[in-house]
């Protein structure tokens, strides 16, 4: 077959002119927000030297880990252009079911399974209603935010579940070579998430669904199944943070994870994940979660009043969403 117009450039010429590692690193979309994170940290340390102390670094990184694990879950959903507002409530609910199981004398390993199962079931309910019934994710998960939190209150009457075994508590409070337990859990989960999204068929399809649902469906891909699974992933990962909270605070609290969905979504968006779906990286998300954690911690250290803190965090979320719109416009032009 002879080309009729021009020459078909067959071999990808990108390989030959590949810039070196350092340049590629700087050109990565995450580098901008990473730079912002560094500046933020330097600025806070100058203002409040306590920020850079090892003990504070330990506390902040642990806090970031809690948020980032939930954010990882929401990330899958957002990549398909969905949203999950119920993750904060799932954190609370799975912590309580896991805690109650242990309080009833169940072995911690089995109790963890109970917690994971709780997250998976709630996520699956979200997923079924979104994918197969076709209700907008915003409304489904907003309702679930209320229902799951309500269930927590029904189960606990607003109290916390105490009597958590010592072996379980250690995960949340101990450290390995000075690294907090939750951070290690996050590291493992982040690597797994990255591999899943980059090298598995499921991950490829998650991005494809977010990029163009209809075209993906017509390519013979079961879009509903993919979307369903992302809500299950979000539920399961939220339950991990839920149980880490129990370990950390030595009890399952009824209000655990309250409002965490905002931080998690903000971490995704600040990290460059598009709310319209199809764009975003695990690395970006981790940096986004770090930005959120550092700001929250910085505000506390600088003794900004709690009222102002909410206002500032809210403003940052809106700002990040504006940035998302600007970015997607630039991609399209």
């Amino acid at each position, binding site marked *: 077959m002879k080309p*009729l117009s021009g020459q078909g450039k067959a071999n*990808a010429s990108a*390989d030959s002119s590949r810039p070196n590692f350092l340049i590629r690193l700087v050109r990565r979309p995450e580098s901008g927000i990473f730079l912002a994170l560094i500046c933020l940290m330097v600025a806070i340390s100058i203002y409040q030297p306590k920020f850079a102390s090892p003990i504070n670094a330990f506390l902040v990184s642990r806090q970031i880990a809690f948020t980032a694990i939930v954010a990882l879950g929401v990330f899958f959903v957002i990549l398909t252009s969905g949203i999950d507002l119920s993750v904060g409530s799932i954190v609370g609910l799975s912590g309580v079911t896991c805690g109650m199981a242990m309080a009833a004398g169940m072995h911690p390993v089995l109790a963890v399974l109970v917690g994971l199962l709780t997250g998976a079931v709630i996520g699956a309910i979200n997923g079924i209603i979104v994918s197969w019934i076709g209700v907008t994710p915003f409304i489904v998960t907003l309702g679930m935010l209320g229902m799951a939190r309500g269930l927590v209150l029904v189960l606990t009457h607003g109290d916390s579940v105490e009597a958590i075994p010592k072996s379980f508590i250690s995960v949340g409070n101990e450290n390995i070579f000075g690294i907090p337990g939750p951070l290690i859990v996050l590291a493992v989960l982040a690597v797994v998430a990255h591999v899943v999204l980059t090298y598995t068929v499921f991950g490829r399809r998650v991005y494809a669904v977010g990029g*163009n649902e209809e075209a993906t469906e017509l390519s*013979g891909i079961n879009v509903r199944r993919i979307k369903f699974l992302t809500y299950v992933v979000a539920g399961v990962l939220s339950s991990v943070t839920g149980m880490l909270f129990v370990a950390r605070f030595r009890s399952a609290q009824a209000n655990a994870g309250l409002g965490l969905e905002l931080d998690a979504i903000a971490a995704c968006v600040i990290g460059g994940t598009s709310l319209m779906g199809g*764009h975003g990286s695990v690395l970006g998300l981790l940096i986004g979660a770090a930005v959120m954690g550092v700001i929250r911690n910085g505000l506390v250290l600088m003794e900004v009043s709690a009222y102002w803190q909410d206002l500032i965090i809210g403003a940052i979320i809106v700002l990040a969403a504006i940035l998302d719109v600007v970015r997607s416009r630039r991609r399209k032009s």
Partner: protein
Amino acid sequence: MSEWMLEMRGISKSFSGVQVLKNVDLQLRKGEIVCLLGENGAGKSTLMKVLTGVHAEFEGTILLDGNPVRFKNTKEAFAQGISIVFQEFNLCPNLPAMENLFLGHEVRGRSGLLSYSKMREKARAAFAALRVEIDPAAIVRELGVAQQQMIEVAKALSHDTRILIMDEPTSALTGEETRNLFVIMRELKERGIAIVFISHKLDEVLTITDRVVCMKDGENSGEIATRDATEDKLVAMMVGRKLDRLYGQRHGQRSDDIVLEVRDLSGPPRIRNVSFKLRKGEILGLAGLLGAGRTELALLLMGARKKTSGTLLLNGRETAIHHPSGAVAHRMGYASEDRKRFGLVLPMTVRENITMAIHPAILNRLGLISAAKENTVTNRYIEMLHIKVSGREQITRNLSGGNQQKVVIAKWLAIQPLVLILDEPTRGIDVGAKAEVHKIIADLADKGVAVIVISSELPEILRVADRILVMHEGRVTADLPRGEATEQSVMKAAVS
């Protein structure tokens, strides 16, 4: 005063360092229909955007009645009587025809509130002037494409329009509707309105225009009075070379093996009792008017729509397909007429799009996607179809229409299809790429693929297909072998 109503002189325009218009000239007389011809990416649309004020930054001068003008935005251009009818309609499908007509300059009563009665009256007058029958209160979504087109035209003419730009206005119209549009265009011409007509359909260009101005690579590449023009001359001006005229030449052996047999297939909203057989290596043309149910039939075959009755036999075996995944597993592919919406994941790379339907085949032993396997497949099809890309990793959004179409075809070739359905495979792509697509189709059939080609362009279907199935209102009304099919016989079956 000069003879020209409009003169664009030495227009140059660049986007982030890339020059897309180089010193382009365009003149228009009062009451003249000028065709702006050129391949996709030649700069036609950019030039029109300069004229209509979309692009306010450019070099060169625009003279309107000999006076220099420079529009800062579309509103200013519109106020001076320059209107455009876009290729893709800019209508709100959920609103009535009349509200679309007056969108942006709504009709108000004395109270300052919208006056529906006045609006209805004015809309009726506007449609009557174009001699089209559209109920001003009809919701646009429920109107046919041709009627939507006429609303666009009416909208463009709702001011004292002097220059009307029509960007591929006939691409979605049937022959009859196109002829009606031409009647109206001639009337507008009589009224002294100058029309810039952008089209890839050369027979239409030769029918309706007075003069053809051709562009190539952002420059003027020729101009000819239509009475002196022939299709070959136009093509030569457009591509700067002679086209391979042998599209659709077949070499393969005819086979009698039936790959696909459809029996009494019905499905909502329109498909009724469709039966046909498709042989190995056969190209089946699916002809009919817009809305005859050709695309619906394709979606039904792919399992993207639910059938109510009927059976499907693949290689003689009855096969149930409930979802496109089932169709793909049985090696059936469907390249949609709307490639941006149903064909490509635009933000993804050429590589990711080409391998979209063969994920299970590009895994390594660990079950992870193998970059090596993926690259091999991608390279093979980029080479085979001569897809012009900067590399495998180019984002498909940034490709031209013809190359996007090739990526979609590549995706389906990758499944090594038994049956491939191509829905309007050459819509909106330029003449050169069109010939290539025709050649690809013929090559596929020669290799034994059974191809169904849906097309609204009769000449295309007559040239490409071995056999033509004509549909009308969801039924098959004719099954014509190549020898018996003529424009007349197909058209007759399409309207009865």
